[in-house]
């Protein structure tokens, strides 16, 4: 169901009630997608806490807190944070060395006793900043400190799924915590992204530079303070021990692999010495560079990559596995503050560690050209994770209770399959509405009865393009204010808009509404969005052309007049010629018995559902959802739509032509514009306490 219908608050109130009922007070870890969503969830939690306090459930010491990146919380300058809070800088400052600037906020926080830090309550991001300002604490580190004692933690799901961040942030959570993933319809994508790495020439160049600089620094240190390096060598000999204070301030280079796969043994001898390790890195970087010079596509498994590596450079698998750990240790020893300069090298080290640790579920892909047609080489080496379960497994194994929810989680049985989890309970809920405030329609043909489809064979057929165009023209006449049109890809959008321009369709639209277009550039898109909003405000009306899977389709809400209708042109299939996708499909078929077509359709429909879901934000909002492709009418596609949409597609709305769709839209918009009395919701979609008691009685009977 769409947001604004109370999913978050229902989840929170249920779990918080559960938490407080039992004595063991299991911690709730609530993971959401974006910063605004986290903040919204925190606001809901705050309201819930207030309500509980007012209604006789005072929870003493209840603490709810959110965590986002340093960028959002840090009061000082983000870039200088590291150089002001790292342990060696602070140690130097304690030794009264001159000219060392420390972050007073961070110092205050670390000197005051922890138990005194925070009064109970729920802190939204603003509250946290205010509290930090009041007490002169750094809000970011305060949040980092407090999440281990908080009852409810709300943060982005990278902190949970991404092994690098999980190790830093979430390692202290106890086993009986309740982990909730909200907005999790794309959870497999995030799992995969967190374990995939792309290497391009840029990164390689930067790492070469970093390696050279490291060599210089090592030579320097050797001259001045050789004991430091010897000390490190001794530590490595004993086995890898993370120094505890380093973790306090992120002063480690993150290890990209999962904690279970970490080797609990000493670092191999050939990279123990700093200068040896740096040369080892240099050799590896040079090898990757040599691979990048190839002019044809290569796809291989990690083991064959390693095999070749060994043949050419005599680099073993074992030291490669320790690459990122060793680099982290080196950086700590050399007391390097400006880690940003070493990002390329970090990536290469992560690449090395990942490729040598995992064999199953990964593929190494080398593409010398960006697209089939381009002749200028722009080589990219992908290490692509194909198996979402790899990142999900540790979370499921570590915590007793994991909840995965979203408004568009369908078909629901696909998710346990893909993530290789056994779902204890799967439940799909429909939505109760006082008035049917959205009208999904499947438009299969134009007014001339020629069918519409974004199928590859017909997508550039003038008749199809014209019919798509006239659907938009007619809709722009009927729909007030904002209208959003989604296309399957940027490429298709460009070609269809060019053809519409030739046909004069854009001029016809322009009579009714202004036209704005989403582009891959963030700045341009936000400008377009802003102007789009303005045009909706002042009555001119506007159409926004955007792309499924784009920024608009994932994160932007079109409340009320900002979106009265969404048209989804075609089915947003992924680019099936992509080699990574092909590899993933093959993997899914062989390991999880998911057929290619099933997965592609599932993925396309969940994105389509995500797009059309943008129009409805809450139960008082209303809007049209138009699926313009004849393939939506087929049962295999329709059944994959979320049930709250599917149940509202009536038989007569599932196979419409443009003119029929227009007349139904007119009727719908008129009836929705009638004044809507909120009190009508009582008893149907809004229950008073009496209704709940009555329901309870009915159930118990």
């Amino acid at each position, binding site marked *: 169901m769409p947001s604004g219908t109370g999913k978050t608050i229902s989840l929170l109130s249920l779990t918080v009630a559960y938490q407080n009922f039992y004595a063991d007070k299991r911690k709730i870890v609530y993971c959401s997608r974006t910063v605004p969503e986290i903040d919204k969830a925190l606001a809901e939690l705050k309201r819930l806490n207030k309500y509980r306090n007012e209604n006789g459930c005072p929870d003493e010491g209840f603490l709810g807190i959110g965590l986002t990146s340093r960028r959002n919380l840090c009061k000082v300058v983000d870039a200088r944070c590291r150089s002001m809070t790292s342990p060696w800088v602070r140690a130097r400052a304690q030794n009264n060395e001159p000219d060392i600037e420390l972050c007073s906020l961070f110092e205050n926080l670390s000197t005051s006793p922890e138990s005194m830090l925070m009064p109970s309550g729920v802190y939204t991001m603003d509250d946290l900043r205010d509290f930090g300002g009041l007490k002169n604490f750094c809000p970011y580190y305060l949040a980092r400190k407090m999440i281990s004692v908080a009852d409810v933690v709300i943060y982005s799901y990278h902190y949970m799924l991404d092994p690098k961040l999980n190790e830093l942030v979430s390692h202290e959570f106890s086993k009986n915590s309740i982990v909730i993933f909200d907005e999790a319809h794309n959870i497999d994508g995030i799992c995969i992204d967190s374990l995939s790495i792309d290497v391009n020439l840029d990164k390689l160049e930067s790492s070469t530079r970093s390696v050279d600089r490291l060599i210089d620094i090592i030579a320097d240190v050797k001259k001045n303070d050789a004991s430091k390096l010897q000390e490190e060598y001794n530590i490595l000999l004993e086995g890898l021990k993370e120094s505890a204070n380093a973790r306090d301030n992120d002063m480690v280079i993150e290890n990209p692999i999962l904690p279970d796969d970490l080797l609990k043994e000493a670092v191999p001898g050939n990279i123990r010495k700093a200068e040896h390790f740096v040369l080892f890195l240099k050799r590896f970087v040079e090898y990757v560079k040599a691979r990048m010079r190839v002019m044809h596509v290569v796809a291989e498994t990690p083991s064959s990559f390693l095999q070749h590596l060994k043949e050419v450079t005599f680099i073993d698998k074992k030291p490669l596995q320790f690459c990122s750990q060793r680099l982290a240790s080196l950086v700590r020893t050399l007391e390097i503050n400006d880690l940003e300069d070493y990002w390329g090298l970090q990536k290469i080290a992560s690449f090395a560690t990942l490729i040598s640790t995992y064999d199953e579920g990964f593929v190494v892909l080398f593409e010398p050209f960006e697209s089939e047609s381009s002749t200028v080489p722009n080589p990219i080496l992908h290490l692509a994770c194909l198996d979402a379960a790899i990142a999900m497994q540790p979370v499921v194994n570590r915590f007793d209770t994991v909840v995965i929810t979203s408004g568009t989680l369908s078909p629901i049985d696909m998710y346990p399959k893909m993530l290789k989890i056994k779902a204890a309970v799967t439940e799909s809920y429909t939505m109760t509405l006082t008035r049917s405030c959205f009208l999904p329609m499947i438009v299969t043909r134009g007014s001339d009865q020629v069918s519409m489809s974004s199928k590859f064979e017909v997508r550039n057929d003038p008749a199809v393009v014209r019919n798509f165009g006239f659907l938009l023209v007619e809709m722009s*006449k*009927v*729909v*007030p*204010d904002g209208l959003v049109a989604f296309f399957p890809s940027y490429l298709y959008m460009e070609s269809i808009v060019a053809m519409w321009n030739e046909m004069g369709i854009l001029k016809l639209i322009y*009579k*009714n*509404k202004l036209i704005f277009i989403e582009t891959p550039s963030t700045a341009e898109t936000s400008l377009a969005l802003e102007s789009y909003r303005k045009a*909706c*405000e*002042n*009555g*001119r*009306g506007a159409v926004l052309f955007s792309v499924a899977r784009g920024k608009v389709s994932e994160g932007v809400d079109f409340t*009320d*007049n900002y979106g*009265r209708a969404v048209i989804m042109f075609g089915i947003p299939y992924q680019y099936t010629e992509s080699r990574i996708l092909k590899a993933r499909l093959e993997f899914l078929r062989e390991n999880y018995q998911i057929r290619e077509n099933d997965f592609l359709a599932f993925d396309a429909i969940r994105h389509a559902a995500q797009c059309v879901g943008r129009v409805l934000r809450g139960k008082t909002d209303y809007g049209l959802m138009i699926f313009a492709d004849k393939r939506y009418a087929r049962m295999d596609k329709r059944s994959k739509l979320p049930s709250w949409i599917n149940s509202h597609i009536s038989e007569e709305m599932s196979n419409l032509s443009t003119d029929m769709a227009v*007349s139904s839209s*007119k*009727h719908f*918009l*008129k*009836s*929705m*514009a*009638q*004044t809507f009395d909120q009190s009508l919701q009582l008893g149907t979609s809004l229950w008073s306490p009496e209704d709940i008691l009555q329901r309870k009685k009915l159930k118990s009977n």
Partner: protein
Amino acid sequence: MSSKPNDAVIDLDEQLLKEQEVGYTWEEEYKRSWDTLQEDENGSLQNAVATLNKKLKLKRKIKDKQASQRGLLRYCYIVFDCSTNTSERDLRPSRLELTLQVIEAFVLEFFEQNPLSQLGIIVVRDGLAKKLTELSSNPTDHIKALRDKQCRDPSGSMSLQNALLIAMNILRQVPNYGSREIFGILGSLTSNDPGDINQTISEIKNEKIRISIVQMAAEVQLFKKACTLTGGVFSVAMNEIHFRELVLNFIIPPPILLEMYNTHLVEMGFSIRVYDQIPTFCSCHHKLTLSGYLCPRCKSKVCSLPVICGVCQLSLIVSPHLSRSYHHLFPTISYKEISTPEVSINCDGCLDSLVNLKHNLSSGGSNFDSDTTRKHEDVFQCPNCKKNYCLSCDIFIHETLHNCPGCVNMSNSLQN
């Protein structure tokens, strides 16, 4: 609510017909109207029909009207849309034709019920707004202007801002005790404005002008905002009947805005009708006429009332004008629904028995058990004079008569 007096006699069949009159049957959605009917234990539909019937009437029964201060002196500009969008035929015969028809009816009815008010008309087309008639209280002028050929030819786009600006510039000059209103009838979903319309709207709000809009297609946020900000009403017409209803709703004067809530004394002249033997010049048209009205202050002659004297600027009226506007201020008190008393009583309006009433309505159901109906029958009682009325009489009294017969009778007998 239809306010033509002869419409007020309600007939169930006519009402049903009207409800259905929403377009051609084959364009309508397929409705399973029989599903809403439920048979009772005896397998009869009479109960169901009676409930439906009652529902319809109750809908007409005006909700409890607070005796509020209403602006009887209204200065109102009608803005109607004549852009290409109004040539759509989703409202028959077309949006524009229907608008013109309804405005004509509206103008007549408006002056019938608001004789002290003045109207003007603005037409919007080609992105421009044009004043069709000046503010005046002469319905014939407006209707003549409306029948002009040029407003039957939709073209171009619509600009609400231009229309608002024209209306605002005139309305800000009218005396501030009057209620200033702009009433838009729009078919277009967009407004192509030369400047910032939001600013215009806030200016209008400062001038204490009220904007009300009836839209013919869908809800446009800007229009809605303009109405709610200025204290007006925004509505969207479902069909022709509903459209007419919404427009005619506007005849009832709106309650006075809170910030204008202070009393004014307005100078008015009660003019005398004269019949001259020899034709004399009237001061309004400068034509020779025999009959007319004399201004009590400057004795100049005008042709029709109400009007503002062209010589001394006095508002000229006759007493019936005042009294006709009166019922808006003092609406007839709402009747309370009471449980049917055990003893049989008659309606004090139509003298029909309140018990047998159901039988008359549902003629044909001869073997119907009258005891079961008795419990469902509605009796409405005036809280002042304690007279009982049936639903039909209640509606007639409140919509047309505007006087409770029982109360009037009582006060008469008291005087005697």
